[in-house]
C-alpha cells in the first residue's frame, strides 16, 4: 500500500494532523457557538449546527484515517521531495508579514505611497537576491515602485473611485 498523498508518508502524516487539528478547533468553536445560541429550530430542521458538525466529524475521521495510513505505510515513501528547510519559507513568511502590515501602512501613508514603499522594497529585495546586489539593478526598484504607486492612484483611486485610504 502506498501513502495516499503524493506517495509521501510525510505529506500524509502532515495532512492527517492538519485535518485532525481543524476538526478539533472547529468543534471547539462550534461548541461555543451552540452554547451562545438561545433560539429553536423548525420541526424537521436538523438545526443550524448539524451540517457543520457532520463535515467536521468527517474531517476528523479522515484525519485519523490518514494518520493510520501514514503509520502503516511508514518507510514506503516513493522518494517524494523533502519539505525544504526554513530558508525556503523565509521569503513567503516575509511577504505575509509585509502584507499584514500593508493595511496599517496604507492608513498611515495613504494607499499610493504605501504601495510605492511596498513595491520598491520587494522589487529591490528580489532583484538583489536574483541578480546580486548591484547598484545598477537596485536603482530600478524605486522607479518601478513609484510607478506602481502612480498606477494605483490613477486607476483605482481616480478612475475607479475606490475608497482606498488616502
Amino acid at each position, binding site marked *: 500500500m502506498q501513502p495516499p498523498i503524493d506517495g509521501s508518508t510525510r505529506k500524509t502524516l502532515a495532512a492527517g494532523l492538519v485535518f485532525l487539528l481543524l476538526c478539533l478547533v472547529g468543534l471547539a468553536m462550534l461548541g461555543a457557538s451552540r452554547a451562545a445560541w438561545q433560539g429553536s429550530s423548525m420541526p424537521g430542521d436538523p438545526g443550524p449546527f448539524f451540517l457543520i458538525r457532520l463535515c467536521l466529524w468527517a474531517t476528523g475521521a479522515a484525519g485519523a484515517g490518514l494518520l493510520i495510513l501514514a503509520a502503516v505505510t511508514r518507510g514506503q515513501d516513493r522518494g517524494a521531495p523533502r519539505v525544504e528547510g526554513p530558508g525556503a519559507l523565509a521569503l513567503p513568511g516575509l511577504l505575509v508579514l509585509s502584507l499584514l502590515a500593508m493595511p496599517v501602512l*496604507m492608513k498611515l501613508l495613504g494607499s499610493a505611497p504605501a504601495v510605492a514603499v511596498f513595491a520598491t522594497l520587494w522589487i529591490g529585495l528580489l532583484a538583489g537576491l536574483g541578480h546580486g546586489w548591484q547598484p545598477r539593478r537596485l536603482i530600478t526598484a524605486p522607479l518601478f515602485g513609484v510607478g506602481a504607486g502612480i498606477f494605483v492612484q490613477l486607476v*483605482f483611486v481616480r478612475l475607479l473611485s475606490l475608497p482606498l485610504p488616502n
Partner: protein
Amino acid sequence: MLLSTFFDTLAGFATDPAMLGLIAIGAVLGLILGAVPGISSTMALAILMPVTFGMEPGPAILFLISIFMSSVYGGSVSAILMKLPGTPASIFTQVDGYPMTQQGKAGQALTYALAASTIGGMIGLAMLVVLAPVLAGFATNFRSPEFAAVALFGIVMLSFASNGSTLVATVMGLLGVVLGMVGFDSLTDAQRLTMNAPALQSGFNLIPVIIGLFGLAEILQNLSGFRDKPGTTPVIGRIFVPFSDLVSRWKVMLRGSFIGTFIGAIPAAGSAVAVSIAYAQERRLSKTPEKFGEGHPDGLVAPEAANSASVGGSLVPLIALGVPGDTITAVLMGALMVHGLTPGPLLFAKDPLFVSWIYASVLLALMATLVFGIGMIRVSVLVTKIPPQLMQVFIAVFCVIGAFAIRNDMNDVYVMVGFGVAGFVFSRIGLPVTPLAFGLILGPILEENLRRSLMISRGSWSIFLERPISAALIAVCVVLVALPLISAGLARLRRRSSGAAGQAR
C-alpha cells in the same frame, strides 16, 4: 425571444466605442497575464475582478469574459515558447508546441494554437447556446432536494476529478462547506463559528478567499522556490500557416472542440480533463502517432480546440444550474454575484438580458482574442521575458487592493492573507485547494436546500430518495466516493489471488 435579445445586445456592445475599448483592454490584459508564466487564467480573473466593481453589470461581464477567454489562449503562449504551461489545461499544448519552437516554428505554433482556440471557442459557444436552455428548462422542475443533490454532486465530482485521492479532495470540499456556513444562519439567527467577532458575523466573502487561495498562495509558492534563471529567447520564425493547411485540420479541430465542450459541461470535470482526452483521442486516430510529441500540429490543435471549447461547456452548468463547471467559472460566479447576478435555471425566463450579455461577451471576446492574438505573436516573446519577480510584486499589490475593494473593509485583506497562507500550506502538503473554494460556494446552497427539504418532509431523509433526480445524483456521489475504496479492494484481492496461484504453482 432570447435570440433577438442576444442580437440586440451584440449590436449594442459592438457599436459602442466604450464597450469595444473594454473588450480590447480585457483581451490584451488576459493575453499578457495568461502568457506570463506562473499566472493562471483563474488568477488573472481573480486579481482583475476588483477593476469591475465600479462598473454596471453588462460592461463588467464583458470585461471579465474578455479576460477569461483571452487568458485561456494566453496560457498556451508560455507553454509553446518556454515549455511552462500557465495552467493545467496547457500541459498538452507544450507537448507538441515546444518542439515546434525548438524547430524555429514558434510563430506557426502560436498561429495553430490561436486558430484552434478560436474555432474551439466558437463551437463551445454554439453548444452553450443550444444546451444551456435545454438544461435550464429541465432544471426548472428542480425543488430543494434536487438542488441539494446537485450541490453535493458538484462537490463530489470536483473531488473525483482532482489529482490525487478522491477522499482527501472530498474532505477539502467539506471543509469548504464548513467555511461557507460561518456567520449568521438565516433561518434561526444563530451565530456559527464566529467567536463573536463582528468581522465574521456576515461570513467569509468569496472574493478575498478566492484571491487568497488562488492569487496569494501561488505567489508564496513561487517565492518559496525563488530563483532567477536567465531564459533563452525563442525564435518566432514564419508566423502565417497556409490557409489550406488550417482547413485540412478541420476534423481535428471539430473533434477536439466537441470533446472540450462535453467534458467541460460536466460539473467540475474541467478543461484539464478535456484536453487530455482530446490529445489521447487524436493520437489514437492519427496515421502518424509516432510524430506526436515531436512537434506535430495535430497534437497542438486538438488540445487547444478542446481547451477553448471547454469554456463554453463549463458555462453550461453555471448558467443553467448555478453550479460552476470548474475553478475559473467559480471565480466568474463570484464576480457575477458581486454584481447582483445569480445564475440558475430561472434565469432564462426572468433575466434573458443577462444570458444574452454572456453569449455576446463570449463571441466578442473570441474575436478580440483572435485580432489581438495575431497582433501579439511577435510581442508575446517580450511578455514571457517580463521578470516574474516584478509581476509577483504587482500581483501582491492587486491582491491587497482587490480584497479591500469588495467591501471597503481592511478585515478582508487579513482574510485574504489568511487564506493565502492556508492555500500555500495545503499545496505544500499535497492537499487540493480547488475543492475548498467549491465547497465554500456550494456549501450554503447545499445547507439551505438540505434543511428546507427536511422541513418539508418533517425530518424524513427519504425525501432525497423518493425523487428520481436527487436519488440518481446521490447514488452517483456514493459510487464516486466509494470507487477508490472499491478499486483498491479489488486490486488487493487480485494481488492475493495471483500470489496464491504463484504459490500453488
